[in-house]
């Protein structure tokens, strides 16, 4: 976590995006031109990412298939344990599973079958429950997105304003409080934080349900558990980026030509900081979607991590493959959004590719 933060903070040496001699009027004209020229580069990004999505799907699903095949233990026994319960699996049920699923067929035949199904967008049925994989993964994917989205929104709503305010007076009181907050929230494991939140808000006050899924109040505790740690990171990254941009020449120029503090912040500082933040939020969004198994299990949240862990435990190959493909596609999707957001915020790549 510290490495990633350092890496992102290192990126924040951004040269000014806007020419120093521009006036307020010039900026307005420039924006109009930018908007007209933005469509083609965005289309190009989308095309590249679509190609990437296809190749990632193929690579990830094939890798999953090979990894699951090479995990220790007999596949049929594992699947039978998933189907019939851990203490009712027997050699007879494992044999039935083997015959039912054709696990005796050569591995390359099974893989070819999977590819053929993939081309038809048929993800197959779960080996354990017998339900279609898409049906099995609908709840996990939507639940994960719901939880990650809520946690991100909360973390941004708290972290970014705190970072901006802290950057106004580096080493001031709020800045130091933020540093303590970052260290404290990162040092607190989500599992412990989640339990503490349940104890306070659910057991003691009785305001919020500890677990469950479906009503609006269910998402609050798990989302806050995740958002606490993230908000500190966002505050830190925002603070460093904003503080650095504030010391740059173009900000000094904007101030000396008489722009008010609010105008400097909104037009120059925040927009520059947004490029760094968008990339960083993208990375954290992926961590949130993929890496919150502990929080999911604590709050009984039926997310993608939970589904994937169960599927691996039971060697439910189609579900593992489809879940991994879903995760890979989410990575591509989030990266696409970050790219498009970057293009929207930073006009330079557009200018380079589409000279006006």
């Amino acid at each position, binding site marked *: 976590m510290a490495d990633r933060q350092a890496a992102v903070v290192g990126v924040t040496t951004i040269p000014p995006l806007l020419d120093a001699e521009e006036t307020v009027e010039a900026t307005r004209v420039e924006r109009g031109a930018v908007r007209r020229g933005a469509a083609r580069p965005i289309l190009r990004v989308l095309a590249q990412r679509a190609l990437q999505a296809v190749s990632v799907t193929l690579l990830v699903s094939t890798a999953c298939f090979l990894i699951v095949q090479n995990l220790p233990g007999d596949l049929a026994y594992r699947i039978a344990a998933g189907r019939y319960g851990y203490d009712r699996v027997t050699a007879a049920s494992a044999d039935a599973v083997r015959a039912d699923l054709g696990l005796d067929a050569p591995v390359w035949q099974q893989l070819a079958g999977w590819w053929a199904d993939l081309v038809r967008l048929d993800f197959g049925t779960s080996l354990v429950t017998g339900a279609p994989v898409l049906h099995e993964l609908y709840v996990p994917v939507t639940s994960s997105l719901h939880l990650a989205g809520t946690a991100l929104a909360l973390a941004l709503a708290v972290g970014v304003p705190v970072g901006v305010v802290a950057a106004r007076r580096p080493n001031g009181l709020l800045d130091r409080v933020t540093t303590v907050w970052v260290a404290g929230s990162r040092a607190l494991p989500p599992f412990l934080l989640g339990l503490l939140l349940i104890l306070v808000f*659910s057991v003691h006050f009785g305001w919020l349900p500890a677990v469950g899924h479906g009503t609006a*109040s269910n998402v609050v505790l798990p989302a806050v558990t995740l958002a606490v740690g993230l908000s500190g990171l966002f505050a830190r990254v925002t603070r460093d980026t904003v503080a650095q941009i504030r010391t740059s020449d173009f900000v000094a120029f904007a101030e000396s030509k008489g722009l008010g503090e609010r105008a400097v912040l909104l037009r120059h500082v925040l927009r520059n900081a947004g490029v760094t933040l968008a990339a960083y939020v993208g990375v954290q969004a992926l961590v949130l979607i993929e890496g919150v198994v502990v929080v999911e299990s604590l709050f*009984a949240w039926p997310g993608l991590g939970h589904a994937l862990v169960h599927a691996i435990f039971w060697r439910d190959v189609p579900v593992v493959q489809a879940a991994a493909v879903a995760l890979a596609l989410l990575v591509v999707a989030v990266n696409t959004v970050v790219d498009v957001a970057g293009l929207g915020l930073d006009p330079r790549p557009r200018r380079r590719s589409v000279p006006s």
Partner: protein
Amino acid sequence: MTWARRLFAGVLIAASVALTACSASPGADGRNSGASTTLRVVGPFEVHSLDPSTGDGFFTRLQVAETLVDADGQGAVQPGLATSWKVSADQREWTFTLRPGAVFHDGTNVTPEAVVASLEIARGKPATPLADAPIEAVTATDGRVRVQLSKPYAPLPAVLAHTSAQVLAPASYGKDKTVQAVIGTGPYKVERVKQPAEIDVVAFDRWAGTAPAIQRVSYQAVGRAETRALMAESGQADVTFGLDPVSRQRVERADGVEIRSVTLPRTILLKVNAGHDKLGDVRVRRAISAALDRKAMATALLRDEEMAATQLFPPSLEQWHQKSVAPLGHDVEGARELLRQAGWVPGPDGVVTKDGKRFEVSLRTFPDRPELPVLATAIQEALKQVGIGVKVKVGNSSEIPAGHQDGTLELALFARNFALVPDPLATLIGDYDPRGADWGAMDWNNAELTSTLNDLAGGVDTATATAARTKVAAILHSELPLIPVAWYRQSAVVSDRVDGFTLDPLERSWLIDKLRWSA
């Protein structure tokens, strides 16, 4: 100068308003909410399949589906969907009479044909008691259900009481005979199943028996024991299953809840490969048994001293538990002496050796029952005291049957439920089959035991049966093909909101129809 402060304050207010709005919304699960007409049941089991042959029997526990035969807490069979049954003189043909006027939840009548269709599908599934019973045919004749056997089999009604034999409406099954919806005949019908975590049921208005006092029940699967304990304590669950020993001690002190316990017909066993060059000697098995300090393990790890097993059958299996048998005790010196008699003498590093071979074996277990890995390490330490080196391998449960089949298994630790079907005889016949069994004996057989079990299965009078059960228990107690370690107690936390809760020792039903809201 003030914009930043205003921005900051604005966002904080917005966030707190959003949070408060969420928390103030009438959460159906909140402690003080008025939505209290729903009984909230919480347990560790997830809902992965609607198929009766798999999973944990959710739909019989929630009283959605019925079986032809029911059973009481002691395992005595009772009428279920069948009101009566009789067996032919040669013990090979059983006839079941259905409850008149019974209807499925979709409004269709229960016909013998529908029952036969359900049982035929159940019979085709592997690893179910029904598939293992010597059934030749199930037919619908003269408005009754007839089961023909290839040989006399007294536990048949008990086998038909197993959750995999539940009777579902024809509309429950899809084209490929997979279960698409659970349409049963019980006092509750399914309103919603949200896999893997939630099942909602409501009282069925055409149920002919006593109408249940509780109209709505909602089951929620919660994976972590800590979370379940907190839900029980905070009143977010009315009935909570699956508490770990530490949480149980804390919940005992909480207000507004009560803990109920019942001993289950389940024993934690050490499976021994009796065909093994080291473990085949009965003196070695007795030495292993004597090396175990069961009382200490039960007290320290299960937090329940009474769960130390003194014999294979727990006291709750009244017909099989033997009061007179000498309890399995802890005797380290005796264990060393037994090993010495078997030719194993201590080597330089404490591990006993014979003919230059060191006594080192592996023990397989799995973490699905959280006490198993810790008990395994306690056994490892106990056996080290007498010079047996044990390597504990915690893996997937399926590695035990797999190791049984390929012969690589040496020791295995697991919990065995003797009342998978209400009559333990059905389980024992399978587990002590002379050819061995995945979850039973391995490379061990005893002609006297086999013939006694077969006599019991053929149907004998009460006095003969009692003598036969005593004989079975005595053989297993002295030969130790499976070494008993601990018995099992099931606990549930019950909120003060409900009265009339009892735990079914056979775990067949949650008996929700007997519950009522307290005044």
